[in-house]
């Protein structure tokens, strides 16, 4: 009790093709209840998780994108997105469903060094 650790959740995988994005989000929601210092990083294909305009009707899969918008209610508001990943995918921060901080890979690498726990999905 009282001990606060820095947890960073590293997301590098596209949504829907595999379950990692969805199940990673479930971890973050639970983690929010533990009063730790939580941040999420989206690198490489992980940036696709935040691409707005999702419509999953035709693949009959639940659209979990609204959950990202609810993160702020859980006090999870440190969302970092890799600049190089956005650029290689023709995306900008304006294409994403939530406000984020765009950082370079090197800046993200530096932030990683400051963490106590890194969980990657």
């Amino acid at each position, binding site marked *: 009790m009282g001990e606060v650790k820095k947890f960073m959740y590293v997301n590098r995988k596209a949504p829907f*093709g*595999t*379950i990692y994005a969805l199940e990673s989000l479930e971890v973050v929601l639970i983690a929010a209840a533990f009063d730790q210092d939580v941040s999420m990083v989206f690198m490489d294909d992980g940036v696709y998780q935040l691409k707005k305009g999702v419509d999953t009707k035709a*693949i*009959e*899969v*639940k659209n979990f994108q609204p959950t990202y918008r609810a993160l702020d209610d859980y006090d999870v508001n440190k969302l970092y997105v890799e600049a190089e990943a956005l650029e290689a995918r023709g995306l900008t921060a304006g294409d994403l469903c939530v406000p984020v901080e765009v950082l370079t890979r090197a800046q993200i690498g530096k932030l990683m060094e400051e963490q106590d726990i890194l969980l990657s999905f």
Partner: protein
Amino acid sequence: MKISILVNEGPYTHEASDSAYLFARAALAKGHEVSRVFFYHDGVNNATRLTEPPQDDRHIVDRWSKLAEEHPVDLVVCVAAALRRGIKDENLAPGFRISGLGQLIEAGIKADRLVTFGD
């Protein structure tokens, strides 16, 4: 046309299982015969009757069972892959049967097309 399908990944974890199911439904809707769906590798995990997804999500295993109930689609789970992963008659969902890899080769020989969904 007679189409067979190979599913190599487990439910929920990978979209392969969803894609295979939606493809099978579309093929049947077009009047094709989906003679066999063969489950290999982690695909055998599509056949566990113990699956209980969240209420607001699709039930992948039940969907396959229903498909086999409504159409003469043979859902075959590879026995060797299933034993490795803990799928046996005692946890097998309705509509599936466990059999050998020969059923995959036979499907390839007898069908006009074989489509693979995997990782």
